[in-house]
Protein backbone atom coordinates (compact mmCIF):
# COMPACT_ATOMS: atom_id res chain seq x y z
CA UNK A 1 0.00 0.00 0.00
CA UNK A 2 1.77 3.03 -1.32
CA UNK A 3 -0.87 5.58 -0.33
CA UNK A 4 0.18 5.89 3.29
CA UNK A 5 3.81 6.54 2.42
CA UNK A 6 2.72 9.24 -0.02
CA UNK A 7 0.54 10.78 2.68
CA UNK A 8 3.25 10.67 5.34
CA UNK A 9 5.84 12.12 2.98
CA UNK A 10 3.48 14.96 2.10
CA UNK A 11 2.95 15.59 5.80
CA UNK A 12 6.68 15.94 6.37
CA UNK A 13 7.03 18.15 3.31
CA UNK A 14 4.20 20.39 4.47
CA UNK A 15 5.63 20.62 7.96
CA UNK A 16 9.01 21.66 6.65
CA UNK A 17 7.41 24.29 4.43
CA UNK A 18 5.34 25.53 7.33
CA UNK A 19 8.32 25.76 9.62
CA UNK A 20 10.50 27.73 7.22
CA UNK A 21 7.68 30.10 6.28
CA UNK A 22 7.86 33.20 8.45
CA UNK A 23 4.53 34.90 7.82
CA UNK A 24 1.83 33.53 10.10
CA UNK A 25 -0.96 33.98 7.56
CA UNK A 26 0.91 32.06 4.90
CA UNK A 27 2.01 29.42 7.39
CA UNK A 28 -1.49 28.24 8.09
CA UNK A 29 -2.24 26.77 4.62
CA UNK A 30 0.85 24.57 4.90
CA UNK A 31 -0.30 23.36 8.29
CA UNK A 32 -3.65 22.71 6.69
CA UNK A 33 -1.98 20.35 4.25
CA UNK A 34 -0.43 18.51 7.17
CA UNK A 35 -3.84 18.23 8.80
CA UNK A 36 -5.21 16.64 5.65
CA UNK A 37 -2.28 14.29 5.50
CA UNK A 38 -2.48 13.20 9.11
CA UNK A 39 -6.24 12.76 8.98
CA UNK A 40 -5.76 10.56 5.93
CA UNK A 41 -2.97 8.66 7.61
CA UNK A 42 -5.19 7.93 10.61
CA UNK A 43 -7.66 6.05 8.46
CA UNK A 44 -4.96 4.40 6.41
CA UNK A 45 -3.23 3.15 9.55
CA UNK A 46 -6.29 1.56 11.05
CA UNK A 47 -9.18 0.38 8.93
CA UNK A 48 -12.06 0.67 11.36
CA UNK A 49 -15.25 2.78 11.41
CA UNK A 50 -14.08 4.52 14.57
CA UNK A 51 -10.93 5.57 12.76
CA UNK A 52 -13.18 7.72 10.60
CA UNK A 53 -14.47 9.41 13.73
CA UNK A 54 -10.92 9.88 14.95
CA UNK A 55 -9.86 11.38 11.65
CA UNK A 56 -12.85 13.68 11.65
CA UNK A 57 -12.24 14.69 15.26
CA UNK A 58 -8.63 15.44 14.53
CA UNK A 59 -9.46 17.31 11.37
CA UNK A 60 -12.22 19.36 12.89
CA UNK A 61 -10.17 20.03 15.99
CA UNK A 62 -7.13 21.24 14.11
CA UNK A 63 -9.28 23.28 11.75
CA UNK A 64 -10.89 24.90 14.74
CA UNK A 65 -7.45 25.59 16.13
CA UNK A 66 -6.28 27.15 12.86
CA UNK A 67 -9.47 29.16 12.68
CA UNK A 68 -9.05 30.52 16.18
CA UNK A 69 -5.37 31.29 15.69
CA UNK A 70 -6.05 33.06 12.41
CA UNK A 71 -8.92 35.05 13.90
CA UNK A 72 -6.81 36.15 16.83
CA UNK A 73 -4.05 36.97 14.41
CA UNK A 74 -6.54 39.15 12.52
CA UNK A 75 -7.39 40.95 15.73
CA UNK A 76 -10.50 39.18 16.93
CA UNK A 77 -14.07 39.70 15.95
CA UNK A 78 -14.96 43.07 14.45
CA UNK A 79 -17.36 44.95 16.59
CA UNK A 80 -19.43 47.89 15.50
CA UNK B 1 8.68 6.95 89.25
CA UNK B 2 7.14 10.05 90.84
CA UNK B 3 9.99 10.36 93.26
CA UNK B 4 12.47 9.98 90.46
CA UNK B 5 10.74 12.77 88.57
CA UNK B 6 10.90 15.00 91.61
CA UNK B 7 14.55 14.16 92.02
CA UNK B 8 15.24 14.93 88.38
CA UNK B 9 13.44 18.25 88.67
CA UNK B 10 15.44 19.11 91.72
CA UNK B 11 18.73 18.15 90.12
CA UNK B 12 17.83 19.95 86.92
CA UNK B 13 17.09 23.17 88.78
CA UNK B 14 20.30 22.77 90.70
CA UNK B 15 22.15 22.34 87.41
CA UNK B 16 20.63 25.57 86.17
CA UNK B 17 21.95 27.29 89.29
CA UNK B 18 25.40 25.77 88.83
CA UNK B 19 25.29 26.87 85.20
CA UNK B 20 24.66 30.48 86.22
CA UNK B 21 27.29 30.32 88.91
CA UNK B 22 29.98 28.97 86.59
CA UNK B 23 29.22 31.56 83.94
CA UNK B 24 29.39 34.29 86.53
CA UNK B 25 32.69 33.06 87.90
CA UNK B 26 34.23 32.79 84.46
CA UNK B 27 33.15 36.31 83.75
CA UNK B 28 34.54 37.51 87.07
CA UNK B 29 31.23 38.15 88.80
CA UNK B 30 30.15 36.66 92.13
CA UNK B 31 26.92 35.22 90.67
CA UNK B 32 23.79 33.98 92.40
CA UNK B 33 23.84 31.09 94.85
CA UNK B 34 23.47 27.73 93.14
CA UNK B 35 20.07 27.00 94.64
CA UNK B 36 18.76 30.29 93.25
CA UNK B 37 16.72 28.55 90.53
CA UNK B 38 15.03 26.28 93.06
CA UNK B 39 14.04 29.27 95.13
CA UNK B 40 12.90 31.00 91.98
CA UNK B 41 10.56 28.17 91.11
CA UNK B 42 9.17 27.99 94.64
CA UNK B 43 8.63 31.73 94.62
CA UNK B 44 6.72 31.61 91.36
CA UNK B 45 4.56 28.80 92.65
CA UNK B 46 3.09 31.00 95.35
CA UNK B 47 2.67 34.23 93.39
CA UNK B 48 -0.62 35.52 92.12
CA UNK B 49 -1.66 33.90 88.86
CA UNK B 50 -4.01 34.82 86.09
CA UNK B 51 -4.31 34.58 82.33
CA UNK B 52 -3.69 37.63 80.13
CA UNK B 53 -6.85 39.00 78.58
CA UNK B 54 -5.44 38.91 75.08
CA UNK B 55 -4.29 35.32 75.27
CA UNK B 56 -5.73 32.29 73.57
CA UNK B 57 -6.65 30.77 76.89
CA UNK B 58 -6.78 27.03 76.30
CA UNK B 59 -3.48 27.09 74.50
CA UNK B 60 -1.88 29.40 77.04
CA UNK B 61 -2.60 27.00 79.87
CA UNK B 62 -2.36 23.77 77.98
CA UNK B 63 1.11 24.37 76.66
CA UNK B 64 2.56 24.36 80.19
CA UNK B 65 1.18 20.94 80.88
CA UNK B 66 2.35 19.73 77.49
CA UNK B 67 5.85 20.92 78.32
CA UNK B 68 5.96 19.04 81.62
CA UNK B 69 4.35 15.97 80.10
CA UNK B 70 6.72 15.54 77.18
CA UNK B 71 9.86 15.85 79.24
CA UNK B 72 8.54 13.53 81.93
CA UNK B 73 7.75 11.15 79.12
CA UNK B 74 11.26 11.52 77.78
CA UNK B 75 12.70 10.68 81.17
CA UNK B 76 10.54 7.59 81.35
CA UNK B 77 11.76 6.55 77.91
CA UNK B 78 15.35 6.95 79.01
CA UNK B 79 14.84 4.97 82.19
CA UNK B 80 12.96 2.13 80.55
CA UNK B 81 15.46 1.80 77.73
CA UNK B 82 13.11 2.87 74.94
CA UNK B 83 13.98 4.21 71.52
CA UNK B 84 16.17 7.28 71.18
CA UNK B 85 14.08 8.17 68.16
CA UNK B 86 11.37 8.91 70.68
CA UNK B 87 13.79 11.10 72.56
CA UNK B 88 14.52 12.93 69.35
CA UNK B 89 10.78 13.27 68.84
CA UNK B 90 10.30 14.82 72.26
CA UNK B 91 13.11 17.19 71.56
CA UNK B 92 11.42 18.36 68.37
CA UNK B 93 8.10 18.63 70.13
CA UNK B 94 9.73 20.94 72.62
CA UNK B 95 9.94 23.33 69.71
CA UNK B 96 6.18 23.33 69.59
CA UNK B 97 6.12 24.26 73.25
CA UNK B 98 8.34 27.22 72.54
CA UNK B 99 6.16 28.33 69.63
CA UNK B 100 2.99 27.79 71.58
CA UNK B 101 4.16 29.75 74.58
CA UNK B 102 5.14 32.65 72.41
CA UNK B 103 2.16 32.66 70.09
CA UNK B 104 -0.61 32.09 72.57
CA UNK B 105 -0.28 35.31 74.55
CA UNK B 106 -0.83 38.02 71.98
CA UNK B 107 2.07 40.05 73.31
CA UNK B 108 4.52 41.29 70.70
CA UNK B 109 7.55 40.30 72.78
CA UNK B 110 6.53 36.70 73.14
CA UNK B 111 5.67 36.72 69.47
CA UNK B 112 9.20 37.76 68.65
CA UNK B 113 10.42 34.98 70.86
CA UNK B 114 8.26 32.52 68.97
CA UNK B 115 9.45 33.81 65.63
CA UNK B 116 13.04 33.41 66.72
CA UNK B 117 12.20 29.94 67.91
CA UNK B 118 10.84 29.19 64.45
CA UNK B 119 13.91 30.61 62.79
CA UNK B 120 16.25 28.55 64.93
CA UNK B 121 14.56 25.29 64.02
CA UNK B 122 17.76 24.15 62.37
CA UNK B 123 19.05 23.46 65.88
CA UNK B 124 17.18 20.15 65.83
CA UNK B 125 18.88 18.85 62.75
CA UNK B 126 22.20 17.85 64.33
CA UNK B 127 20.33 15.60 66.73
CA UNK B 128 18.69 13.86 63.83
CA UNK B 129 22.05 13.25 62.23
CA UNK B 130 23.27 11.92 65.56
CA UNK B 131 20.45 9.43 65.63
CA UNK B 132 21.21 8.24 62.12
CA UNK B 133 24.92 7.98 62.84
CA UNK B 134 24.28 5.92 65.94
CA UNK B 135 22.01 3.66 63.96
CA UNK B 136 24.85 3.05 61.54
CA UNK B 137 26.96 1.64 64.34
CA UNK B 138 24.53 -0.12 66.58
CA UNK B 139 21.84 -1.13 64.05
CA UNK B 140 19.31 -0.40 66.73
CA UNK B 141 17.88 2.68 68.33
CA UNK B 142 16.73 1.27 71.63
CA UNK B 143 18.78 2.59 74.51
CA UNK B 144 19.21 -0.86 75.98
CA UNK B 145 20.81 -2.08 72.74
CA UNK B 146 23.04 0.96 72.55
CA UNK B 147 24.22 0.39 76.11
CA UNK B 148 24.93 -3.24 75.28
CA UNK B 149 26.87 -2.19 72.18
CA UNK B 150 28.97 0.20 74.22
CA UNK B 151 29.62 -2.43 76.86
CA UNK B 152 31.01 -4.61 74.10
CA UNK B 153 32.83 -2.09 71.89
CA UNK B 154 33.69 0.85 74.11
CA UNK B 155 31.95 4.21 74.36
CA UNK B 156 30.46 5.80 71.26
CA UNK B 157 32.06 9.07 72.28
CA UNK B 158 35.24 7.70 70.79
CA UNK B 159 33.81 5.55 68.03
CA UNK B 160 31.41 8.16 66.69
CA UNK B 161 32.99 11.37 67.84
CA UNK B 162 31.30 13.65 65.25
CA UNK B 163 27.91 12.39 66.37
CA UNK B 164 28.78 13.21 69.95
CA UNK B 165 29.89 16.67 68.88
CA UNK B 166 26.58 17.15 67.13
CA UNK B 167 24.64 16.20 70.20
CA UNK B 168 26.83 18.49 72.27
CA UNK B 169 25.91 21.31 69.88
CA UNK B 170 22.26 20.44 70.31
CA UNK B 171 22.43 20.60 74.09
CA UNK B 172 24.41 23.81 73.85
CA UNK B 173 21.74 25.44 71.72
CA UNK B 174 19.19 24.73 74.40
CA UNK B 175 21.23 26.11 77.34
CA UNK B 176 20.37 29.46 78.83
CA UNK B 177 22.77 32.34 78.16
CA UNK B 178 24.47 30.40 75.38
CA UNK B 179 25.51 31.58 71.93
CA UNK B 180 22.37 30.12 70.38
CA UNK B 181 19.78 31.21 72.94
CA UNK B 182 18.39 33.98 70.77
CA UNK B 183 14.90 33.11 71.90
CA UNK B 184 15.50 34.55 75.33
CA UNK B 185 17.68 37.44 74.25
CA UNK B 186 17.20 40.45 76.45
CA UNK B 187 16.32 42.85 73.65
CA UNK B 188 12.98 41.09 73.40
CA UNK B 189 12.46 41.15 77.19
CA UNK B 190 12.30 37.46 78.08
CA UNK B 191 11.26 36.20 74.69
CA UNK B 192 8.48 33.72 74.77
CA UNK B 193 8.63 33.44 78.56
CA UNK B 194 7.58 37.05 79.04
CA UNK B 195 3.89 36.57 79.62
CA UNK B 196 3.92 33.32 81.54
CA UNK B 197 4.11 34.22 85.22
CA UNK B 198 3.05 32.81 88.53
CA UNK B 199 2.28 29.13 88.57
CA UNK B 200 2.59 28.86 84.83
CA UNK B 201 6.15 30.09 84.99
CA UNK B 202 6.92 27.68 87.79
CA UNK B 203 5.58 24.85 85.65
CA UNK B 204 7.76 25.91 82.79
CA UNK B 205 10.80 26.10 85.04
CA UNK B 206 10.07 22.56 86.13
CA UNK B 207 9.79 21.43 82.53
CA UNK B 208 13.03 23.15 81.58
CA UNK B 209 14.78 21.56 84.55
CA UNK B 210 13.57 18.16 83.42
CA UNK B 211 14.74 19.00 79.92
CA UNK B 212 18.25 19.81 81.05
CA UNK B 213 18.37 16.67 83.14
CA UNK B 214 17.09 14.50 80.32
CA UNK B 215 19.43 15.91 77.70
CA UNK B 216 22.51 15.59 79.86
CA UNK B 217 21.49 12.15 81.01
CA UNK B 218 20.87 11.07 77.43
CA UNK B 219 24.24 12.37 76.35
CA UNK B 220 26.00 10.38 79.04
CA UNK B 221 23.89 7.30 78.43
CA UNK B 222 24.28 7.30 74.67
CA UNK B 223 27.89 8.29 74.30
CA UNK B 224 29.58 7.03 77.46
CA UNK B 225 27.42 4.13 78.46
CA UNK B 226 25.47 2.82 81.40
CA UNK B 227 27.45 3.91 84.45
CA UNK B 228 26.65 3.58 88.14
CA UNK B 229 24.18 6.18 89.30
CA UNK B 230 26.58 8.57 91.08
CA UNK B 231 29.11 8.33 88.33
CA UNK B 232 26.42 9.22 85.84
CA UNK B 233 25.49 12.32 87.81
CA UNK B 234 29.13 13.26 87.99
CA UNK B 235 29.57 12.85 84.25
CA UNK B 236 26.49 14.99 83.68
CA UNK B 237 27.95 17.65 85.91
CA UNK B 238 31.20 17.60 83.97
CA UNK B 239 29.38 18.00 80.69
CA UNK B 240 27.32 20.81 82.18
CA UNK B 241 30.33 22.70 83.42
CA UNK B 242 32.01 22.41 80.04
CA UNK B 243 28.84 23.80 78.46
CA UNK B 244 28.83 26.64 80.95
CA UNK B 245 32.37 27.53 79.96
CA UNK B 246 31.35 27.70 76.31
CA UNK B 247 28.33 29.82 77.18
CA UNK B 248 30.42 32.14 79.28
CA UNK B 249 33.04 32.92 76.69
CA UNK B 250 30.97 33.13 73.49
CA UNK B 251 28.78 36.08 72.53
CA UNK B 252 25.22 35.56 71.42
CA UNK B 253 24.96 35.23 67.65
CA UNK B 254 22.57 37.12 65.45
CA UNK B 255 19.45 35.04 64.72
CA UNK B 256 20.17 33.97 61.18
CA UNK B 257 23.81 33.30 61.92
CA UNK B 258 22.74 30.63 64.38
CA UNK B 259 20.77 29.01 61.59
CA UNK B 260 23.71 29.15 59.25
CA UNK B 261 26.11 27.66 61.76
CA UNK B 262 23.78 24.89 62.76
CA UNK B 263 22.95 24.09 59.15
CA UNK B 264 26.60 23.99 58.22
CA UNK B 265 27.26 21.65 61.13
CA UNK B 266 24.42 19.48 59.95
CA UNK B 267 25.76 19.53 56.42
CA UNK B 268 29.17 18.42 57.63
CA UNK B 269 27.55 15.60 59.56
CA UNK B 270 25.54 14.52 56.55
CA UNK B 271 28.79 14.24 54.64
CA UNK B 272 30.15 12.22 57.55
CA UNK B 273 27.18 9.88 57.38
CA UNK B 274 27.51 9.46 53.63
CA UNK B 275 31.19 8.62 54.10
CA UNK B 276 30.20 6.20 56.86
CA UNK B 277 27.64 4.66 54.59
CA UNK B 278 30.17 4.19 51.82
CA UNK B 279 32.87 2.87 54.13
CA UNK B 280 30.65 0.55 56.10
CA UNK B 281 28.71 -0.58 53.07
CA UNK C 1 12.20 0.22 23.91
CA UNK C 2 9.47 1.25 21.57
CA UNK C 3 9.71 4.16 19.13
CA UNK C 4 7.08 6.00 21.17
CA UNK C 5 9.28 5.82 24.23
CA UNK C 6 12.39 7.11 22.48
CA UNK C 7 10.48 9.88 20.77
CA UNK C 8 8.83 10.76 24.07
CA UNK C 9 12.16 11.03 25.85
CA UNK C 10 13.59 13.26 23.14
CA UNK C 11 10.58 15.55 23.08
CA UNK C 12 10.56 15.63 26.87
CA UNK C 13 14.13 16.84 27.02
CA UNK C 14 13.53 19.40 24.26
CA UNK C 15 10.49 20.57 26.14
CA UNK C 16 12.24 20.85 29.47
CA UNK C 17 14.96 22.96 27.91
CA UNK C 18 12.37 25.02 26.07
CA UNK C 19 10.27 25.67 29.13
CA UNK C 20 13.21 26.08 31.47
CA UNK C 21 15.24 28.37 29.27
CA UNK C 22 12.92 29.87 26.65
CA UNK C 23 14.45 32.00 23.95
CA UNK C 24 12.23 34.91 24.77
CA UNK C 25 11.55 35.12 28.48
CA UNK C 26 7.92 36.12 28.54
CA UNK C 27 5.11 34.46 30.41
CA UNK C 28 3.37 33.66 27.17
CA UNK C 29 6.26 31.95 25.47
CA UNK C 30 6.95 29.90 28.57
CA UNK C 31 3.32 28.90 28.82
CA UNK C 32 3.33 27.74 25.20
CA UNK C 33 6.63 25.95 25.65
CA UNK C 34 5.13 24.06 28.58
CA UNK C 35 3.04 22.11 26.10
CA UNK C 36 6.11 20.42 24.61
CA UNK C 37 7.08 18.36 27.68
CA UNK C 38 3.40 17.52 28.00
CA UNK C 39 3.62 15.83 24.61
CA UNK C 40 6.75 14.04 25.74
CA UNK C 41 4.96 12.68 28.78
CA UNK C 42 1.99 11.78 26.60
CA UNK C 43 4.22 9.64 24.41
CA UNK C 44 5.88 7.98 27.40
CA UNK C 45 2.51 7.11 28.87
CA UNK C 46 1.48 5.82 25.47
CA UNK C 47 4.57 3.63 25.35
CA UNK C 48 3.45 2.03 28.61
CA UNK C 49 -0.19 1.82 27.51
CA UNK C 50 -1.38 3.96 30.38
CA UNK C 51 -4.35 5.32 28.53
CA UNK C 52 -6.56 6.45 31.41
CA UNK C 53 -3.67 8.35 32.88
CA UNK C 54 -2.94 9.83 29.47
CA UNK C 55 -6.48 11.03 28.99
CA UNK C 56 -6.65 12.52 32.47
CA UNK C 57 -3.29 14.14 31.97
CA UNK C 58 -4.31 15.88 28.77
CA UNK C 59 -7.54 17.10 30.34
CA UNK C 60 -5.76 18.35 33.43
CA UNK C 61 -3.12 20.06 31.28
CA UNK C 62 -5.86 22.00 29.54
CA UNK C 63 -7.31 23.07 32.88
CA UNK C 64 -3.95 24.04 34.31
CA UNK C 65 -3.27 26.04 31.15
CA UNK C 66 -6.49 27.85 31.86
CA UNK C 67 -5.49 28.53 35.45
CA UNK C 68 -2.13 29.89 34.37
CA UNK C 69 -3.68 31.89 31.54
CA UNK C 70 -6.00 33.53 34.02
CA UNK C 71 -3.12 34.62 36.24
CA UNK C 72 -1.01 35.84 33.33
CA UNK C 73 -3.93 37.76 31.87
CA UNK C 74 -4.35 39.65 35.12
CA UNK C 75 -0.66 40.20 35.48
CA UNK C 76 -0.39 41.61 31.96
CA UNK C 77 -3.41 43.81 32.52
CA UNK C 78 -1.84 45.20 35.67
CA UNK C 79 1.28 46.28 33.81
Amino acid at each position, binding site marked *: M*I*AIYVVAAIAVFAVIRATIERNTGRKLP*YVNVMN*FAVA*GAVVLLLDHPLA*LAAAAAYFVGSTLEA*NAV*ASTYAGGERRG | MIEYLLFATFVGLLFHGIHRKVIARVQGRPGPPIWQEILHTLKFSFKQTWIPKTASQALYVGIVFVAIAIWSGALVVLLTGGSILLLFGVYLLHKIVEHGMGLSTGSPYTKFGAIRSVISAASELPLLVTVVAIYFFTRSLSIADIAAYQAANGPLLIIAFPAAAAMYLVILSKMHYGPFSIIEAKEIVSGNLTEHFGVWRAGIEVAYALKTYVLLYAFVLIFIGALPFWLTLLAMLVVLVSLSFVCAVTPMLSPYDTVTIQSLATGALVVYIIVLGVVMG | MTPEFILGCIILIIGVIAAGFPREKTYLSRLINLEIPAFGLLLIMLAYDEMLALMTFIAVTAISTFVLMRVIERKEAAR
Partner: protein
Amino acid sequence: MLGEFLHILAAAAVSWILFVTVDILFKLPETGGVSGASAIARDIEAGGGALAGGTMMGNIVCSPDASAGTLLAACGVYVAGIPGGLAAAVLVYIGNRICHDPGYAGTTGAVLATFVIYGFTQIGFAATDFIAGMVIAILTIQGLSHTHASRLLARLWRVRE
Protein backbone atom coordinates in the same frame (compact mmCIF):
# COMPACT_ATOMS: atom_id res chain seq x y z
CA MET D 1 3.32 -0.28 -7.73
CA LEU D 2 3.40 2.03 -10.70
CA GLY D 3 -0.24 1.28 -11.45
CA GLU D 4 -1.23 2.25 -7.96
CA PHE D 5 0.75 5.42 -8.29
CA LEU D 6 -1.05 6.31 -11.50
CA HIS D 7 -4.34 5.56 -9.81
CA ILE D 8 -3.44 7.98 -7.07
CA LEU D 9 -2.59 10.69 -9.57
CA ALA D 10 -5.84 10.15 -11.43
CA ALA D 11 -7.73 10.23 -8.15
CA ALA D 12 -5.93 13.43 -7.27
CA ALA D 13 -7.08 15.02 -10.52
CA VAL D 14 -10.65 13.88 -9.97
CA SER D 15 -10.76 15.14 -6.39
CA TRP D 16 -9.13 18.40 -7.40
CA ILE D 17 -11.79 19.09 -9.99
CA LEU D 18 -14.52 17.98 -7.62
CA PHE D 19 -13.64 20.12 -4.64
CA VAL D 20 -12.63 23.21 -6.59
CA THR D 21 -15.89 23.09 -8.46
CA VAL D 22 -17.99 22.69 -5.37
CA ASP D 23 -16.10 25.37 -3.48
CA ILE D 24 -16.41 27.85 -6.29
CA LEU D 25 -20.07 27.05 -6.72
CA PHE D 26 -20.57 27.77 -3.03
CA LYS D 27 -18.81 31.13 -3.47
CA LEU D 28 -15.95 30.44 -1.15
CA PRO D 29 -13.63 32.98 -2.82
CA GLU D 30 -16.18 35.75 -2.35
CA THR D 31 -15.77 36.63 1.31
CA GLY D 32 -13.89 35.27 4.26
CA GLY D 33 -16.25 33.29 6.46
CA VAL D 34 -14.43 34.41 9.59
CA SER D 35 -11.98 37.20 10.23
CA GLY D 36 -9.13 34.70 10.21
CA ALA D 37 -9.83 33.72 6.61
CA SER D 38 -9.68 37.34 5.54
CA ALA D 39 -6.39 37.75 7.37
CA ILE D 40 -4.90 34.80 5.54
CA ALA D 41 -6.19 36.24 2.27
CA ARG D 42 -4.52 39.56 3.01
CA ASP D 43 -1.23 37.89 3.80
CA ILE D 44 -1.36 35.83 0.61
CA GLU D 45 -2.14 38.94 -1.39
CA ALA D 46 0.75 40.70 0.28
CA GLY D 47 2.96 37.81 -0.81
CA GLY D 48 2.06 38.37 -4.45
CA GLY D 49 -1.11 36.31 -4.76
CA ALA D 50 -4.67 37.19 -5.73
CA LEU D 51 -7.19 38.20 -3.09
CA ALA D 52 -10.09 36.03 -4.26
CA GLY D 53 -7.91 32.94 -4.38
CA GLY D 54 -6.44 33.80 -1.03
CA THR D 55 -9.89 34.13 0.47
CA MET D 56 -10.80 30.69 -0.73
CA MET D 57 -7.59 29.28 0.68
CA GLY D 58 -8.30 31.02 3.95
CA ASN D 59 -11.75 29.54 4.02
CA ILE D 60 -10.31 26.10 3.40
CA VAL D 61 -7.95 26.57 6.35
CA CYS D 62 -10.60 27.88 8.69
CA SER D 63 -13.44 25.47 8.18
CA PRO D 64 -14.01 22.01 6.72
CA ASP D 65 -14.99 22.77 3.12
CA ALA D 66 -15.52 20.54 0.12
CA SER D 67 -11.90 19.42 0.16
CA ALA D 68 -12.27 18.20 3.72
CA GLY D 69 -15.58 16.66 2.71
CA THR D 70 -13.88 14.80 -0.10
CA LEU D 71 -11.10 13.55 2.15
CA LEU D 72 -13.41 12.36 4.89
CA ALA D 73 -15.81 10.87 2.38
CA ALA D 74 -12.92 8.92 0.90
CA CYS D 75 -12.01 7.78 4.39
CA GLY D 76 -15.64 6.86 5.05
CA VAL D 77 -15.92 4.89 1.86
CA TYR D 78 -12.66 3.15 2.67
CA VAL D 79 -13.78 1.99 6.11
CA ALA D 80 -17.50 1.39 5.52
CA GLY D 81 -18.63 2.01 1.96
CA ILE D 82 -21.54 4.34 1.19
CA PRO D 83 -22.79 4.56 4.81
CA GLY D 84 -19.30 5.53 5.87
CA GLY D 85 -19.28 8.34 3.35
CA LEU D 86 -22.60 9.63 4.57
CA ALA D 87 -21.41 9.41 8.17
CA ALA D 88 -18.42 11.48 7.08
CA ALA D 89 -20.85 14.03 5.66
CA VAL D 90 -22.57 14.24 9.05
CA LEU D 91 -19.22 14.71 10.78
CA VAL D 92 -18.28 17.45 8.33
CA TYR D 93 -21.61 19.10 9.03
CA ILE D 94 -20.86 19.10 12.76
CA GLY D 95 -17.39 20.41 12.00
CA ASN D 96 -18.89 23.26 9.97
CA ARG D 97 -21.11 24.22 12.87
CA ILE D 98 -18.21 24.11 15.30
CA CYS D 99 -16.08 26.29 13.09
CA HIS D 100 -18.68 29.01 12.67
CA ASP D 101 -19.10 28.36 8.97
CA PRO D 102 -22.42 29.54 7.59
CA GLY D 103 -22.21 27.51 4.39
CA TYR D 104 -22.83 23.95 3.32
CA ALA D 105 -19.94 23.45 0.91
CA GLY D 106 -18.33 20.79 3.07
CA THR D 107 -21.45 18.73 3.56
CA THR D 108 -22.43 18.93 -0.10
CA GLY D 109 -18.91 18.08 -1.13
CA ALA D 110 -18.85 15.08 1.17
CA VAL D 111 -22.13 13.68 -0.14
CA LEU D 112 -21.11 14.23 -3.76
CA ALA D 113 -17.67 12.79 -3.20
CA THR D 114 -19.13 9.71 -1.53
CA PHE D 115 -20.95 8.75 -4.67
CA VAL D 116 -18.13 9.73 -7.00
CA ILE D 117 -15.60 7.73 -5.04
CA TYR D 118 -17.94 4.80 -4.71
CA GLY D 119 -18.39 4.89 -8.43
CA PHE D 120 -14.65 4.89 -9.00
CA THR D 121 -14.17 1.97 -6.64
CA GLN D 122 -16.43 -0.03 -8.93
CA ILE D 123 -14.06 0.50 -11.87
CA GLY D 124 -10.86 -0.66 -10.22
CA PHE D 125 -9.83 2.27 -8.09
CA ALA D 126 -9.28 1.80 -4.38
CA ALA D 127 -10.65 4.24 -1.81
CA THR D 128 -7.13 4.64 -0.44
CA ASP D 129 -6.14 6.10 -3.79
CA PHE D 130 -8.61 8.84 -3.19
CA ILE D 131 -7.33 9.53 0.31
CA ALA D 132 -3.81 9.95 -0.99
CA GLY D 133 -5.12 11.72 -4.08
CA MET D 134 -7.02 14.23 -2.02
CA VAL D 135 -3.93 14.96 0.04
CA ILE D 136 -1.98 15.54 -3.17
CA ALA D 137 -4.76 17.75 -4.50
CA ILE D 138 -4.78 19.92 -1.40
CA LEU D 139 -1.01 20.02 -1.55
CA THR D 140 -1.19 21.58 -5.01
CA ILE D 141 -3.53 24.28 -3.74
CA GLN D 142 -2.17 25.02 -0.27
CA GLY D 143 1.29 23.65 -0.12
CA LEU D 144 3.32 24.33 -3.27
CA SER D 145 3.03 27.97 -4.20
CA HIS D 146 0.49 30.27 -2.66
CA THR D 147 1.06 32.89 -5.33
CA HIS D 148 0.29 30.68 -8.27
CA ALA D 149 -2.46 28.74 -6.59
CA SER D 150 -4.31 31.85 -5.54
CA ARG D 151 -4.01 33.37 -9.02
CA LEU D 152 -5.35 30.19 -10.55
CA LEU D 153 -8.28 30.12 -8.18
CA ALA D 154 -8.99 33.78 -8.81
CA ARG D 155 -9.07 33.11 -12.55
CA LEU D 156 -11.54 30.26 -12.03
CA TRP D 157 -13.61 32.50 -9.77
CA ARG D 158 -13.81 35.11 -12.53
CA VAL D 159 -15.14 32.43 -14.85
CA ARG D 160 -17.85 31.61 -12.31
CA GLU D 161 -18.79 35.26 -12.05
